C-alpha cells in the first residue's frame, strides 16, 4: 500500500524496530512507530495525504526515525497495544514511550502539532 502513490516525498520507513533504535541513538532522533494494515481508509489517508506533505516529511526527517509495521503480517510487541489502525507510538532512542499513543488519523496541521508536542515532551524528559 505504501508503494502505491509516491509521487512526492514519503518518510523513509524502516521495518525493524531494533534497527530504528540504533539509527535513532546514533542520529539523536526520536522514533515514530506506525501500526497500519491493508484496506484501512484511515491508514490510507495518513499514508497518501498527510505523509505526502512536504512540511510533515521535513519535520519527520529532522526529528524522527519512522518505522512502519503491518499488524496483519508483522509481529507487534505486546507493549504496543492498539484498538485499531492507524496507531502511532513515539519513543526515544532507548525505546521509552513518550506521551500517549495516537489512535487514528489526524489531518496535516494536527499531526504536525502532535509531533511538536512529542518533541517538546522528549526535551522535558531529558532534563
Amino acid at each position, binding site marked *: 500500500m505504501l508503494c502505491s502513490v509516491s509521487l512526492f516525498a514519503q518518510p523513509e520507513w524502516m521495518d525493524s524496530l531494533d534497527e530504528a533504535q540504533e539509527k535513532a541513538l546514533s542520529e539523536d532522533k526520536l522514533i515514530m512507530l506506525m501500526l497500519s494494515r491493508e*484496506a484501512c481508509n484511515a*491508514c*490510507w489517508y495518513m499514508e497518501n495525504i498527510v505523509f505526502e506533505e512536504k512540511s510533515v516529511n521535513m519535520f519527520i526527517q529532522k526529528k524522527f526515525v519512522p518505522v512502519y509495521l503491518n499488524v496483519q503480517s508483522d509481529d507487534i510487541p505486546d507493549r504496543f497495544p492498539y484498538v485499531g489502525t492507524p496507531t502511532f507510538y513515539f519513543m526515544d532512542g532507548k525505546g521509552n514511550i513518550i506521551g500517549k499513543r495516537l*489512535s487514528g488519523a489526524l*489531518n496535516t496541521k*494536527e*499531526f504536525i502539532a502532535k509531533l511538536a508536542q512529542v518533541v517538546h515532551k522528549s526535551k522535558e524528559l531529558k532534563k
Partner: protein
Amino acid sequence: MKYFLISIAFLTALFSPLSAQNKFLTLEEAFVLKAQVIKDKAVVSFELASDIYVYTEQVNVKVTPNTDVEAGEFTLPKGHDHDGEVVYFDGQTLEIPLVNKSGNSGIVPFELQVSYQGCSEMGLCYEPSMQLFNLDVDLSALSTTATTAADTDSTEDVSDVKEQGEDPITQLLSGGNLLYILGGFFIFGLLLSLTPCVFPMVPILSSVIVSHGSDMTTKKAFWLSMVYVQAMAITYTIAGVIAGLTGAGVQAAFQTPWVIVTFSAVFVLLALSMFGLFELQMPQSLQSYINRKTEGTGKGYTSIAIMGLLSALIVGPCVAAPLAAALGFISQTGDALMGGMALYALSMGMGVPLLVVGTGAGKFMPRPGSWMDAVKSIFGVMMLAVAIWMLSRVLEHSVIMFMWSALAMFVAVSIGAFEVKDEAYCHPCHAAKKSIGLMIALYAAALFIGSVTNAKSMLNPLERLMPVQGAVQSSVANASAAQNDFIKIGSISELDRIISESKGKKIMLDFYADWCTSCQELEHVTFSDSRVRQALSDYVLVQADITPNSDENKALSKKFGLFGPPALIFYDENGKELKEKRVIGFVPPEELLAKL
C-alpha cells in the same frame, strides 16, 4: 473519487478545536452486540455508536462446532455504499436459524461467534473482532433440516428479467395515481367509439334504443342510453376482472423472457390488424346470432339492458384487437380490482357518443369520415408501443431504443412528414402535420443515433456525442458497451487460468459489483473514454463480478486484501502483479491513462 471523498471527510472531521489527540470510543463502546435465542433462531443485534460503520462483508455469525446445534443459512441485510465499500451505518438485527443436527431433544448449550470489522469516520479502523456468546437452546423447538431465513432476505427476486418494474409505466400501474389510469382507459374507450366500425353506427343504435321506449323525452332518452352503456360496462368490467385474476395467477410467468416475447408478438399482431393487414373479430355466426336476439321488440329498460350486455360481446374488427390488448395489459398487472375499474372507465368512454346522440345533441358530433381510419392507426401505434415496452424488460437498452426510433419514424411518416400534397389540400393543416411529423422524425433520428452509440437515456439520446473532457468525437465510432469486452470471472481458479493463458499479454483485472456506484462511474466515465479504450486495447480485460458474494467471490477479494470494489489490478506480460499500479476506487480517465 473514493479517496478524494475520504480526505474531505477527514479534513472536516479532524478539523476540531480539540487538542491534537483523538478520543476514540473503545471497541465495546463503538460496537454493542447482543445475542439471544428466540424459539428456533439466534437473534443477534448490534448497535453502532455515531460515526461508526461496519463492513457488511466482514459480518459473520457462526456456531462453534457443536454436536447438537448448527447454524442454518441466512442472508445479511443489504448494506449501503460508502465510497465503493458496502457498510452498515446503523445497527442491524440478524436472525440465524438454528438446526438440530443430532436429533436429540432437551436444552443444550452452544457458543455463538459473531465477528465483524468496522471503522470510525473520525479516522480509525478498528481491528477485526469477534464476540462469543454462551447461549442455550431447546432442541425440540428446532427443525432438523436447514431452512433459509426469509426475513432478512433482500427484496430482490431472482428473475431472468432485468430492471424489475422500475420503468415509469410499470410504476404508474403498480402504485401510480389510479385517477391517471382510469382517465387513460376512459380516453381509450372514447377513441374506440371513434373507430370506423363503431362511430357510424351510433345514430342508428341510438334510434333503436329510443324506439324501445314510449313517450320519449330527452331525459328518458338519456336514461335509456345510460342503461345500455351501463349494461355494456358490466360485461367489459367482468372481462377486466377475469383478466386481472388470470394475470395474478400467472404473475411469475410474466417474468420469464419467453412469455414476455410471446406477449409482445401478440400485441404486434393486434397492431397489424389495426393497420388493416387482417381483420380480427368475433365469429360472424356468433355475431348474427346475438344480433337476432337483440332485435326483439320488448319495451322498457330490461330489454335495453340485455341489448347492452350482449352487444359488448359483438366485438367487431375495430374493437376486438384494442380490447384484447387492453385486457392483456391488465392481466400483466395481475390486479383484478384495477382491471375491473379500468374496463369500466373504458366502457364509459365508449358510451360517450351514444349518450351525446341520445340526448339529441347529435348535431354537435363530427361527421364520420376518413379520419376514423386515423383512429385505428392510433390504436395500432399504441399497441406497438406496448409491445416495445414489454420487451424493454428483456432486451438490451440500445435495441429497445432502436425500436422506439423506428416507431417514432413510422409515426412521423404516417403523419405526412415527408409527403408532398397538392395545393388544393388545406395548407395550414398540411403545414402543421408536416412540421409535427418532421419534429418526430428528428427525435426518431436522435433515438437512432442513441441506439447505436449505446446512450442510456431516452430523453438524452445524443449524450455520447457530447464532448467529454478531452474526448474526441470518435466516441461515436467506438460505441459498444465496455462491459462486453471484459472476460467475466468469479473465482481465483478462473483468474489463475486466464493469467496462465494470457502469457505475453498485459492483464487488467476489474473488481465490480452491481451495488457499487463508483464502479458504474468507472465504467461510464473512464472505461468509455476513447483514449482509455485505445490504451486498453492490448490488455486482456478481466472483470471479477462479486455481486453474488459467493465464497469464491470472497476469496478472490481477500486474495488482494480488498474490502470492496471498485479496484483495478494490473499484471505484466509474465502474469506478475504490478502492485504499484493498483487502483482502488474511482479514477478519472486521465489518471488511469497515466497508469497504462
